[in-house]
């Protein structure tokens, strides 16, 4: 037991002290932030005022066109040919041509508006123009029918469905599909990333021991299985450390960034409210905002979910980790590892793809089987958990994951103990099978 702790300590320290670990830990959140910020920044850099000319032959639009941000509109009532000639010499951004029409022929406009430009126009700008034109046409049409925009606004309804799930004991629980969806996706995805990132690290570690020829020295002191498990656990701790540091750094970075970059005077309560509303609309969350999210979060048993997440996180990693170790032991170089990586990565990739389908229908038989079979259960069951699958299914899935973990470690251990001492041999699935059978 003492020796396995020694191994864990070495595996952990030798990785955590590496420059690449420190660099990745610091760079990770920065890269993430950059990845998310770049599109925003690029978009913002595009804020110069653009002049858009509108050739409104009938003069119907001039009075109702809303002034749009960043766009400087100029109206013309001259015929298109003349305006176009002027436009060609100007550096105006776009020329919108609205052919003349009367109230009765206004419907015809829908397909006859052209935009002339020197350069292709972005989708956002097109939408801006078309939204404006549409709303003017809409208003004109409404007026023709004897309605005003105010009446329409007043009659608008927005329904917010509260799902309430009736438990067998008559217990009522408010369902929380959106938050649940977010949580389960995030949980499943984290497990997926973790297994891939650190499973590969285990594999490379085993290969390093094999190619540097230190392995025979070590297994004359400890059992191969101890060495393998020590490495898997050590790398897991490296992963936890890195994740924890990433979360911490991201938190620190975002705090620093907001205090430094956002001028307090700019923070306008109304803006913030609008902002949240916008975000909420994007993810399809009811309009009454944060209060509702909090209510929903309370309805989910967070500590249960967190506990389960840890279980599937660790269980899934351990199960796949030993397989990665076995692959590392069987091959001499990273290039040879590809053929054996396939059967390991396929169930993982399958899980993450199946997760999307399963979330739409969390009680399907695909969902059931995928959350029971240990190869897919860490990701899929994690995704299903917020939808309250039956307890016996959770129990079965957990037991099977433990059995699966013991089984893969046993198989991997048998491949590992022989593989690490085999040099320069072409290993096929047939040889692996022989190693497993050999006493």
């Amino acid at each position, binding site marked *: 037991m003492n*020796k396995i702790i020694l191994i864990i300590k070495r595996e952990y320290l030798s990785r955590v002290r590496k420059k690449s670990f420190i660099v990745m830990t610091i760079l990770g959140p920065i890269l993430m932030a950059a990845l998310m910020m770049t599109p925003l920044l690029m978009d913002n850099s595009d804020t110069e005022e653009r002049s858009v000319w509108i050739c409104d032959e009938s003069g119907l639009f001039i009075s109702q066109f809303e002034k749009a941000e960043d766009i400087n509109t100029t109206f013309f009532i001259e015929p298109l040919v003349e305006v176009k000639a002027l436009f060609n010499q100007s550096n105006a951004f776009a020329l919108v041509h609205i052919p003349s029409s009367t109230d009765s022929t206004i419907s015809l406009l829908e397909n006859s508006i052209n935009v002339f430009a020197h350069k292709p126009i972005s989708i956002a700008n097109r939408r801006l123009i078309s939204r404006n034109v549409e709303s003017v046409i809409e208003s004109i049409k409404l007026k023709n029918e004897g309605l005003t925009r105010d009446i329409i606004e007043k009659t608008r309804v927005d329904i917010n469905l509260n799902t309430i799930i009736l438990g067998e004991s008559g217990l009522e629980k408010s369902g929380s599909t959106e938050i649940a969806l977010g949580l389960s996706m995030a949980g499943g995805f984290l497990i997926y990333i973790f297994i891939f990132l650190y499973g590969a690290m285990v594999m490379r570690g085993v290969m390093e021991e094999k190619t*540097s020829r*230190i392995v*025979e020295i*070590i297994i*004359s*002191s400890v059992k*191969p299985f101890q060495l393998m498990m020590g490495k898997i656990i050590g790398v897991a701790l490296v992963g936890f450390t890195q994740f924890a540091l990433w979360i911490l750094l991201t938190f620190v970075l975002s705090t620093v960034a907001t205090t430094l970059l956002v001028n307090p005077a700019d923070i306008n309560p109304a803006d913030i409210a609008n902002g949240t509303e916008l975000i909420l609309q994007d993810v399809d969350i009811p309009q009454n905002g944060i209060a509702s999210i909090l209510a929903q979060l309370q309805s989910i048993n967070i500590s249960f979910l967190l506990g389960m997440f840890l279980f599937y996180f660790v269980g899934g990693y351990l199960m796949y980790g030993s397989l990665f170790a076995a692959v590392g032991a069987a091959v001499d170089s990273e290039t040879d590892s590809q053929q054996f990586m396939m059967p390991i990565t396929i169930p993982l990739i399958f899980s993450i793809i199946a997760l999307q389908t399963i979330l739409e229908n969390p009680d399907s038989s695909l969902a059931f089987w995928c959350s029971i079979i240990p190869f897919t259960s860490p990701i899929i069951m994690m995704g299903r958990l917020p939808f309250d699958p039956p307890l016996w299914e959770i129990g079965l899935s957990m037991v099977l994951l433990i059995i699966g973990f013991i089984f893969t470690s046993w198989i991997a251990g048998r491949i590992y103990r022989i593989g690490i001492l085999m040099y320069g041999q072409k290993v096929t699935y047939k040889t692996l099978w022989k190693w497993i059978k050999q006493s």
Partner: protein
Amino acid sequence: MKVLEVQSVSKTYIHHKALDNISLSVQEGQIFGLLGPNGAGKTSLIRIINQITIPDEGRVLFNGEPLNHNHIGQIGYLPEERGLYKKMKVGEQALYLAQLKGLSEKEAKKALRSWFERFDINTWWDKKVEELSKGMAQKIQFITTVLHQPKLLIFDEPFSGFDPINANIIKDEILQLKENGTSIIFSTHRMESVEELCDHIALIDKSKKILDGPINEIKDKYKQQIYKVDFSSSKLGFLDRLPEHLKLVQQNAHKAEIQILNDSSATDLIRFLLDHSDIKGFEEKIPTVNEIFIRTVQGN
């Protein structure tokens, strides 16, 4: 006293039998040469002694007890395929390996310091292994093998990678260890070092033991009654007409090697030779381990 006793050990892998009913024993303070051609089964046997694999049949006793995990700290093993973690610092790595053998950190540090002092390599402590030359790394490996003062040491090709000067240093260290009562199993293809170091040899070929005994007895046994004679004249025409019980093995200028084919004595041979010529030198030809190796393996 027997430190190690291998009793009728057999081991079969999928394709072949690696060891077939091998028995041998190593005495305290003995250097035991484990010889054999490539693929004979030496490494399989060594791995069984190190508990890396277990035998299919037979058993191994260490100090009279069946081999178990408590013995790991009393065995030191320098494998033929050996290396170190390249990115780790020398001192740290040596400490780690020593602790895996059961030394405490303090004991290990103390022992390491004295070995580093002895080899005058104190400056290597904080170097990374990848900065060392092959010979330097081999030295570190030697130290980590013997550091925990094991009762039994197993060296598989310990001199590979060393220049002659360093090989000599290591050889002296091995002799010193033997002096201190350590038993050593020594596996190599360099027969001249077997000749120099070993007290006892065993030869394994095609997974069977074909020879086992003290090196002097084996040499005696393999003597073929061949005598090297140095004549003072070069008129050696009589050698072509030797009597039937004598055979001319080799001849050049003044010298000849003559084999006695029946059980007549060397004195008879000298008498016969003196009748025909004058003799400057006369000595029995002792077979080298190299010759014994080749003869037995080819005859097997």
